[in-house]
C-alpha cells in the first residue's frame, strides 16, 4: 500500500496521547491504592491537557486524508458495521472525557462521588475511568480499521491490534517520563520503568509480526484474478497509459533499499535507542529522556510508514505492466 501520511500522523499522535493519559491515570490509581508515593504538585492537569492536544492534533491530521472533510460528521453513521465509523465515535468520546478530566482537575471541582470499599472515589477519577474506557476502545477501533481488512493479509491479524496498543502505550509512557522530569513532579521511576517495559514488549510484538509477514503469500494470483489456469500469463496492457487510481493508491514507489533502510531505522530509532536511553536515564536527565522521546516518535512514524509499505493489496496483480 502507498503510505497515507495523514493516517500515519493520526495513528501515532493519538497513540501517544492515549498512552500519556493512561500513564498518568494509572499512576493516580496506584497512588490511591497506596502502591505509589504521591509525588510533588498536581501534574495531571498538564498531562491531560497535552494528551487532549495530541488527540486534537491527530484529528486534524485525519482531516487531510478526506476528500470532503466538511462531511466528516456523516462518518459516525455506520458504527454497526464499520470500524472506521466506530473510531469516529471513540475519538471524540476520548477527547471529551480527557478534556472534562483536565477541566475538573484545573478548576478543583473534585467532589467525592462514591467510595469503593474504603477508597474514596472523586469525580475526576470517575471521569478518568470513562476516559480510560474510551481510550481503550479507541485503540481497538483504530487498529481494527486495518486488521479487519481480510484481503490485506499483512494487516489481518490480532498482532496489528496488539502492536497499535503497545506502541501507543510505549510512546505515551515515554512522554510521561519526559513530563515527570521536566516538571519535577510525578512518579519518574514508575513511568520510566513502564516505558522500558512497554517499548520492549512493543519491539517483541512488532518483530513477531515482521517475521509473520515475511513469508506471507496472497492467495490471489494472476490465474485466479482473471480465471485463466495457465502457469504463464503476462500482462500486455492494463487499460490506461498514464496510470490510474489503481496504480497510484495501492503501490508504493520506494526502492527495496529505501524500504530496508526504513525498517532498520524504525527498529533502532523507535525501539532500541529509546530502550537504552530510558534504561539509563535519571530523574534529572531531561536531555536523555527528551532524546528518547524524539527518537521514539520519529521511529514510530517510520514504523507506521513501513506498516503501509509491507501490506500487499491483491488488486496489484491486475496492474503489473502499462503496455
Amino acid at each position, binding site marked *: *500500500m502507498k503510505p*497515507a501520511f495523514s493516517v500515519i500522523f493520526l495513528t501515532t499522535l493519538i497513540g501517544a496521547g492515549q498512552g500519556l493519559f493512561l500513564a498518568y491515570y494509572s499512576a493516580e490509581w496506584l497512588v490511591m491504592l497506596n502502591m505509589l508515593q504521591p509525588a510533588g504538585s498536581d501534574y495531571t492537569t498538564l498531562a491531560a491537557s497535552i494528551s487532549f492536544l495530541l488527540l486534537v492534533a491527530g484529528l486534524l491530521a485525519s482531516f487531510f*486524508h*478526506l*476528500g*470532503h*472533510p466538511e*462531511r*466528516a460528521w*456523516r*462518518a*459516525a*453513521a*455506520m458504527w454497526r*458495521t*464499520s*470500524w*472506521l*465509523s466506530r473510531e*469516529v465515535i471513540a475519538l471524540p468520546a476520548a477527547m471529551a472525557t480527557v478534556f472534562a478530566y483536565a477541566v475538573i482537575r484545573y478548576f478543583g471541582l473534585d467532589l467525592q462521588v462514591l467510595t469503593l470499599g474504603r477508597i474514596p472515589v472523586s469525580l475526576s477519577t470517575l471521569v478518568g475511568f470513562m476516559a480510560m474506557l474510551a481510550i481503550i476502545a479507541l485503540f481497538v477501533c483504530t487498529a481494527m*480499521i486495518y486488521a*479487519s*481488512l*481480510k*484481503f*490485506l493479509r499483512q494487516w489481518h491479524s490480532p498482532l496489528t491490534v496488539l502492536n497499535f496498543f503497545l506502541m501507543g502505550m510505549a510512546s505515551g509512557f515515554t512522554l510521561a517520563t519526559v513530563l515527570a522530569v521536566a516538571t519535577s513532579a510525578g512518579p519518574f521511576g514508575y513511568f520510566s520503568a513502564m516505558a522500558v517495559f512497554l517499548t520492549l514488549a512493543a519491539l517483541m510484538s512488532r518483530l513477531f509480526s515482521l517475521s509473520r509477514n515475511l513469508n506471507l503469500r496472497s*492467495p*490471489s494470483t*494472476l490465474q*485466479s*484474478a*482473471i*480465471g*485463466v489456469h*495457465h502457469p*504463464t*500469463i*503476462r*500482462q*500486455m*496492457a*492494463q*487499460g*490506461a*497509459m*498514464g*496510470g*490510474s*487510481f*489503481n496504480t497510484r*493508491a*495501492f503501490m508504493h514507489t520506494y526502492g527495496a533499499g529505501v524500504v530496508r533502510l526504513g525498517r532498520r531505522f524504525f527498529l533502532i530509532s523507535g525501539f532500541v535507542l529509546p530502550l537504552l536511553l530510558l534504561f539509563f536515564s535519571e530523574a534529572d536527565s531531561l536531555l536523555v529522556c527528551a532524546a528518547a522521546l524524539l527518537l521514539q516518535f520519529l521511529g514510530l512514524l517510520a514504523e507506521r510508514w513501513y506498516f503501509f509499505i509491507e501490506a500487499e*493489496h*491483491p*488488486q*496489484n496483480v*491486475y*496492474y503489473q505492466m502499462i503496455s
Partner: protein
Amino acid sequence: MTQLALVIDLNTCVGCHACVTSCKEWNTSGDAGPMVDRNPYGAEPTGTFFNRVQTFEVGEFPDTQTIHFPKSCLHCEDPPCVPVCPTGASYKRPEDGIVLVDYDKCIGCEYCSWACPYGAREIDEQQKVMKKCTLCVDRLYDESLPEAERKPVCVLSCPTSARIYGDIHDPESDASRAINAAGGYQLMPEWGTQPANHYLPRRKVSIAVHEEDLQRVDNPLRKEDRGQRAPTTRTTLDDSTSW
C-alpha cells in the same frame, strides 16, 4: 431476489475498448457530473473510468493466446466495500443487487477501495468522491428509453456481443443460461465475495466443414456449363478489365 449482473465472454471479446469509451461517454454526461479526464490528448492520459479492458498474453511464444479482459465493478453478492463505509454512502440495493455510491454522502476516505480486492473503485480527483460502475442504473429503469435500450451502455456498444446483461438469480435469463452453458466463473473466488459478474472462459472452437458445404452437389451451374465451358487458357473478360 434479483441480482443484475454482466456476463463477459472472453472467448468473443476482441479488445476494441468500445465498452470503455461508451461507458465513459454515458457516465461523464450523466447527472453525477463529469468524470476526471486529465491530459486526454497528451503523452500520459489519465482519469476516472468505470470500466477498462486489459490485455494478457497466455502461454509461451509461439503457442500463445491473447486475452482481452474487461474489468469493472463486479457487484459482489457479499460486497466487502459496503460494510466498511463509515457514512453509508456505499450501499447494495436490495431490489436489484447493484452496488452504488451516494456521491453526496461520500467523504472520500478511500477506505472502501482498500477493502475491494479487485481494485474496482476509483476516487474522482476533481469531485473527491469514490466512483465506480453503476451498471448504468440510470438507463435500466428509464421508461423514456426504448425497452431494448434499457441496458448498460457497454452491453449495447459491444460489437461482438461479448457482454451479456441479466439477472443471474433468474435461471431463465440470458446471463444465467450463458453461465450454465459455457462454464461461467467468478474472479478471485478465494475471498468469498461472490461477484455477481461472471466471465465465460476461452473455448476451443471447431467447425466441421464438409466437402458439400464448399461445393454444392446439386450445383445447377455444373449442368448448364456442361460442354460449353470456355477453355481456361483463353483470356476472359475478367482478366482484361479491372473492376
